């Protein structure tokens, strides 16, 4: 019997052989690299650093967490990070709906393909290039103010501020909201929208009572992306946020690279994980994963 035949008949007789050979590599990847890295980070967050020699001291100490909770700066930074992540998520939900609806329900096949490309193309270009483009738009002598002066309006001072971060993050992660929302809108059977109109509901009522609840899983999937991507970013705050706009990620970055206090960085990095955990629990309570 040739080897290919032997393998296929073995995996037919013993189902687990097929399952293991398909799942083996992803399991190593997920368990060995991802979970182990998070575990290592979690363990390290209880270590300390010798302030003179800079040596890591393994052990179990809550000192990192104590200094995080007692430092007003760190709490302010965490609040800012979470607040902007939430604002970006809400903004993207609002922006994604009309695009998703037009793409799936109104556009013909050609327009639809063009819209899909327009949503996807930015994802294939460099993140840095896109953030720098926004710097040029938003800075004090940038495109935005140039355009405002041209039509006789006063200049806007939103470059290097929380407003700038809100705008740039909303732009960056919008495709991650549009894609799952339009997939969810597409899965709503057209007869349900007809039934709603047939029963006397106008457009807005149909949107609120049929489309939004039925597309909820898609909105939550998008929100997980936009929220977690904002929560973990540190490049955009660095480039468009300016002074006093640090995110959790910026503190982690400077403690790893500059101060060399890895345990403290690890302790602070545990926070976004916990926030995401709470976020997912709330999403599950809302029934967002019922369809999975």
């Amino acid at each position: 019997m040739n080897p290919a035949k032997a393998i296929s008949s073995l995996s037919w007789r013993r189902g687990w052989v097929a399952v293991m050979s398909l799942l083996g590599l992803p399991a190593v990847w997920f368990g060995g690299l991802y979970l182990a890295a998070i575990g290592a980070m979690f363990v390290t967050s209880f270590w300390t650093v010798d302030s003179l020699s800079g040596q890591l001291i393994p052990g179990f100490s809550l000192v990192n967490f104590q200094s995080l909770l007692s430092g007003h700066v760190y709490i302010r930074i965490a609040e800012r990070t979470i607040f902007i992540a939430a604002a970006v998520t809400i903004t993207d939900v609002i922006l994604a709906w009309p695009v998703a609806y037009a793409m799936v329900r109104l556009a013909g096949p050609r327009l639809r393909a063009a819209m899909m490309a327009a949503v996807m193309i930015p994802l294939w270009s460099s993140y840095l290039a896109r953030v720098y483009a926004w710097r040029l738009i938003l800075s004090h002598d940038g495109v935005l103010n140039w355009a405002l002066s041209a039509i006789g309006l006063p200049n806007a001072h939103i470059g290097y501020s929380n407003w700038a971060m809100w705008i740039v993050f909303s732009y960056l992660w919008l495709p991650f909201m549009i894609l799952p929302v339009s997939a969810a809108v597409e899965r709503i059977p057209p007869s349900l929208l007809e039934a709603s109109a047939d029963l006397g509901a106008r457009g807005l009522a149909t949107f609120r009572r049929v489309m939004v609840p039925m597309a909820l899983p898609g909105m939550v999937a998008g929100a997980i992306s936009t929220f977690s991507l904002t929560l973990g970013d540190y490049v955009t705050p660095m480039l468009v946020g300016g002074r006093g706009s640090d995110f959790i990620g910026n503190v982690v970055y400077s403690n790893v690279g500059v101060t060399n206090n890895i345990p403290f960085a690890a302790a602070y990095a545990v926070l976004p994980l916990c926030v995401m955990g709470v976020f997912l629990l709330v999403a599950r309570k809302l029934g967002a994963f019922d369809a999975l």
Partner: protein
Amino acid sequence: MEVKTITPPIVQLEGVAKSYGGAVALARLDLDVRAGEFFTLLGPSGSGKTTTLRLIAGFERPDTGRILLDGADVARLPPFDRNVNTVFQDYALFPHLTLVENVAYGLRAKKMPKAQAEAEAEKALEAVKLGAYGGRKPAQLSGGQRQRVALARAMVNKPRVLLLDEPLGALDLKLRHQMQAELKRLQHETGITFIYVTHDQDEALSMSDRIAVFSEGRIEQVGTPFDLYERPATEFVADFVGTSNILGHALLRPEKVRLQPLDAPVPEGANAKPGIVRESIYLGAVTRYQVVLDDGALLAVMETNSVPLGNRLRLNAGDQVLAVWPKAAAVNIGN
């Protein structure tokens, strides 16, 4: 001279045409439906019957023509401004809502207070024998139960006209017969006008007051089940409604023909033609035969199995027979 009470039409279609990108779905249709009628749109798929229903519901707009509901042209009104409700082929129940919320949906859309709307919905669910299921979601129901929820959800709004789009298509035969009786009962009790789309001629014949037979975007004939079966206007109607033998321009229904031995006496005023049985299919209550007449024509014959077993003339393929029918049984098509 026959005296009839003339009820004014509740739905009127005048010169309604609809095409989809060059393909004609309906070609200048005229149709009157009377108040309180059980009116059926019957035809094969693609004949325009569903398009007609969707035009009345407001899901499609006609290219030309008028759609009158109680005398007022509604052709340009959206579905939510028309006092008609639809029972959809796939039921279109809202999966995220309970049965009570589903049935109360139309009342809530018309701003009825929640408590009152839900009380009405409970009553409507009881009327279709699902009173105990109000808190469940549609996914927890069987096909027949979903069908009844869809019916309650439409009828609770007390529409002027109820539109039903092949509502029993997905049910098995026994359930379908039950639901046919149930629909007739509901229609009788509420007095609501039903417009019913089906491709099933048995269903159409057994339920309807009147039937419009559709073919290729046109209406071939409008009439009672009796009219369509006994006096079909066209060959299409004769063929689509029931089984038919077309002899020249005359229609002869299979159950009107008797088969007898060649030497048996032929009754007065009857046609008799000799032939050979080609096929004999026993179906329980009846037996179907295919007989090749000596002139070459093929004749479908249906005999009831009313003679006790043993006394019956048993006919098999190859037997010589005489096909006999009263002269009046063969009717000219179009008369």
